[in-house]
Structure formats: structure tokens, C-alpha cells
């Protein structure tokens, strides 16, 4: 943590996590047709245990969800410092808040991302989304 390069990586991680999540939920709620562009070509979305692989599948999966309104109230992120991520900033992000799906009550949700630098942008490697009581409410 005292290494300046590591310190810089942490700072970048913190800043990116905030920017990324703000962009992500804005896209999810307001411009969902653009959400797919935030993922890597072979990115993964797991929505309440339902997987969608690849940008196109993800895009079509999210377009089949009701209109949403997300409010984020927790956010945490760490850099993945490992030989597999050398030279390519890769961060894991866990966040949560409340979500209102059209026709449903407001519910807490949690979400975890792995994002990685892809050229000058960060893109989603994986995205795991859980509505907190979805398994129990059925």
C-alpha cells in the first residue's frame, strides 16, 4: 500500500468504481438500449441466476426486463492485483441499493462487477445481479 504505483492503482480503482456505476445505472434506467456497449464482446451478465453471454445476448436480455429505477447506496471496490491482470487495470466492484421494477415493489438489490481496461475505456467482464429476496418471494 505504500508503493506509489499501488497507491495510484487504488485511487484509480476508487474513482473508476464511482464513475462506472453512475454511468451503468443511468444506462440501465434511461438508455437501456446502450447498456450492451458497456460490456466486453464476450462479457457476462447473470441476472438473478439467469446468465447471458456476449454483448448481443446481454442487450436483448436487459431489454426484456421491465422499466427500472435504481438507487445506489453502497459501493465498494478493490483492484485485482495478480499475474493475470498485469498491465491491465482490473477492478472488482460490489454495490447495492434499491430498485423499482415497473409493476413491482421497491426492493433491495446487490450487484458485483469485474471491470477491466479495454483501450481507453473500462468494460464489464462479468456482472452479477441479485434482487435480495427474489429467491424467497417466488
Amino acid at each position: 500500500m505504500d508503493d506509489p504505483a499501488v497507491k495510484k492503482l487504488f485511487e484509480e480503482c476508487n474513482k473508476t468504481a464511482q464513475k462506472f456505476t453512475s454511468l451503468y445505472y443511468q444506462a440501465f434506467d434511461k438508455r437501456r438500449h446502450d447498456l450492451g456497449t458497456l460490456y466486453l464482446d464476450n462479457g457476462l451478465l447473470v441476472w438473478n441466476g439467469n446468465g447471458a453471454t456476449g454483448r448481443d445476448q446481454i442487450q436483448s436480455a436487459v431489454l426484456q426486463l421491465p422499466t427500472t429505477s435504481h438507487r445506489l447506496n453502497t459501493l465498494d471496490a478493490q483492484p485485482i492485483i495478480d499475474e493475470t491482470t498485469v498491465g491491465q487495470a482490473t477492478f472488482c466492484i460490489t454495490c447495492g441499493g434499491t430498485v423499482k421494477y415497473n409493476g413491482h415493489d421497491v426492493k433491495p438489490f446487490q450487484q458485483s462487477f469485474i471491470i477491466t481496461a479495454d483501450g481507453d475505456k473500462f468494460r464489464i467482464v462479468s456482472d452479477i445481479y441479485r434482487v435480495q429476496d427474489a429467491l424467497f418471494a417466488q
Partner: protein
Amino acid sequence: MSHNHRNSLQKPKNATAFKQTRKVQFKPVTKNKKSLELAARHLNDDDEDMDGVGTSSSFKRRGSPRPMMKGNHSHPQQRKLIQSFYGWYHVAITALNKNEVNKDELWTYIMSQLNHHIIPMHWKLDNATIVFYVNDFTAAEKLLHLGSKKLLMPDNSRIIIKVRAGYPSVTLDDAYKEKMKLVMAKRYNAAGRSLDLSKFNEDPDFSTMFCGLFHGPIFKEAIEIISQNIPDLEILLINDNKISRIDNISFSAKLPNLKSLNIANNRIQNIATLSICFKDCQLLDLTMKGNPFVDKLRQRYRNEVAKKFPTVKMLDGEQLVSTENNITTLPPAKASFFCQIEGTEIVKQFLAQYFLILDSANRAPLADAYHADALLSVTIPPAGQAGRIESIWKNNRNFMRIVPDPETFRAKQLKVGRNSIVGFLCDFPKTAHNLQTFAVDMCLFTPKILSFNVAGLFKEIDSGETKPIRYFHRQFIIVPNGSGFCIKNELLLVTSGHGPQLKEGAQLIV
């Protein structure tokens, strides 16, 4: 032409009288040279009266969106011409001591002084005043500059030049309409059923004529011409015309086959009036970027268009998909997802071991599950959502907490290395988990790195009588280590059980 100079020289007795006496008249009522000159001087210093000076009687100022030229009122020579939004300027040249003027003589004199080629348009001779328009800023500026000098014609008559922003008011007579029709016909592509009226007034055929589509009556006439001559038109381009509003036109009635419209780079402020004009049109392709309302709507733009133009499939060259939908059904939730089936066993074993130790009296053996440089952090939602989870609150690393020095705070809250992590885990309240309540999602499974999430219920069993039901959500990054695996990153979110979780949790966890 003149102002009613006699009245304007008299001090009005009261406001009403003033109002009445200010009425503009275009016939000279006296030939007194001095009063004429005074009147003109008075007017020269008074922008408010610009309508009265040298303007054709058909020109309307009131309520007009056309910008007024602002000038220095006391020194005409310091006036600066403000660039007109529409690019048109009104020029009035008056020979003061004359009731009639030889316009050729006056014009020749002005040209000899100006040193700039100008194309006067829509020119009119009104007694001793020549009125015309130019659409060239430099010409307008030069005329204004010339007007700030004392100009005397060879016969010593004084000349006044007034310039301001303004476009001609045209009479849509048959000749004018015919000219419009010719230019439009030239721009029509019969094979594509498409008409390109972009930058209409910049057409070379209009070099001596004003035909700005931003002028409502001209726009209306253009649509009328299309309706009468090419009612099967499918594609219409009216981009780059400085159009600020379109109303009182029903396009579905006038152009029933219109499928594609380009109205980009105009000055339209309001999408609502636009959508009324295009109501019931079967528009598929719409280009509207470069209008003020697009910027005003910002991220709502595409949704608004989807709502107000329900038939449109392409907007600004991109597919238009509304995020507003009528779907209310959620896909059923599944308890687990594995990106690769081979990962299932590893995760199962890992979880069984991990939570067995976590729920035991001695959590120290968990040290072996972590990499020497492992990172762990905890987030807890604000008390407003989950109630304040007192037992672990001091570890809360939530980025959304407002703290004086976020970077230092976040570094301090992070558990780095086995000792720090196991220390935290040992301090964590005693727990009872039930794996039956878990949701497991594995998103990464490679020989070098794997990642999965676990979420589920647990009971805080040493929190006095209450033993609250909590919900956790853990993100693990796992790397190979010797013959097994160890945790490199762990992000733990802890919150209270929600809704049905509380009842089920109480039943499932003893």
C-alpha cells in the same frame, strides 16, 4: 417618406397624447427642411423607433422573434452591428432634403462611397428612401459604417443610412410561388420520392431573393406546394434552415406518405408542438439532432421521441428502442449459475468448508483460505435502509459515506493480508448460516483465476435476545495456490433480511 415630424418635435401634453402623436405616417406632411432633419436626427438616436424609419409599412416588429440591433444611443458612429441570427439585414437610405429622389443617382453615389459590392434584395423606393435587404454581414457593416459619416450628395442633400437585423417580408404572389416551385422541382428526386430542402435559401437560384423556410408563411407555402405537386413524397429534408417553430400544419393530411424526415440543425425549442404537427404520420426515420430541445431533454431525448413519435424506428441514424416498456413480468430467479459446469464441485467444496469454519467457535483456520496479500472489505447500507448494523459498523468501507478524506479512509478500512483479515473475521459476531438459502453465481473459471458470488441468510447468534436475520453478498476472486485455491479479493456486503427472508430465515436457521 417621413415620420410625423411636426408632432414628434412637439412636447406631448400627456402620455395618451404622446401615444397618439407617435403614430408613424409615411407621407410627408411638410416640406420644411429643418424639421425634417431634426426628425431624422431624433430617430437616428432612437432605436425604439426603428420601425418607423425607412421601413416598409408591411414590416412587423412587434412579437417578432427577429433580434433587434442594439446600438449606442448617443453616438451613432460608435454603433456596432450585431450579427443577425437569420443572416439578413434591413437597410434604409434616405436623402433628407428631398421628397422624391432619383434612385439611380442616390444608388450610384452610395456605391461610389462604399467600396464593396453588394446585392440589394427586395428593394423598394419609398419617396426619398430606398429600402432593401442584404444577406451579407460585411456589406451590412460597411453600410452602417458609411452611415456614421456625414454624407452629402453633390447637390448637398444629406444622406442618412440605417441598418439593422431583419429579413424581408415577402408577398407570396404567383410569381414568387412559381419561383419556389422551380427551385423545389430541381431539388426533387422522383426515383427516391425524396425532396431535399436543406439550406433552402442558400440555393444559388435564390441569390437575389429571400426565401427562408424559418419564415412561417414561406414554410407553409413550401408544404402546400409539395402537397399539391408531389403528394406521394416519402423523404423530406428540411435540415439547416434556422427553423424555430413549426405549427398549425398537419403533415399527415398534407404529406400522407411521409416516412423519413430530416429536421436536424434547426432552432426548434419544443418537441411537443412538433409532435402535434406530425401526429398520425407514419414516420419511420427521423433526424432531429442539432435542435435546442435535443440538448434540453438530454438523456430523456430518445425516450421522449419514442413516446411522442411511436412509429419511428430510426432516430438520428441509430435504432430507436425505448427503455420505457410495458413489461411487468420478471424472469423467475434461479438459485445458481455456473459459467462452466466444471466449477460447480470446487465452489461447493469451498463453500462447505468456509462456512463450516465461519460458523464454528474458532475462525482462525480461515487464514489458510486467504492469499498472503489478500484484500477484504465490508460495506453496509445506510441505517435508513437496513437499520444500523452496530456489530460491524466500524468496518464499513462504503464509498458513499461522507468522510473528510475519502482516500485515506478507504485505505484504512481495507483489510490487507491474512492477519488483518482473520482478525476481522474473528471479531465478526458469531453466526449461523444455512447453505440452503444461498444463491451462487460463478462468473469466471480459468486455470489462473476464478470468481464467484455467494449471497444468503445468516443469524447473528450472539446479539442478545434478538438474534437478527442478516443477508450477506460476497464477491470472491480466487487464484490457484499450491494444490488448492485461495482468496485474493473478497468484497462483503452485509444488510438486514428483507420481507419474506425474515420469516423464512427464522425457520431455516436454528
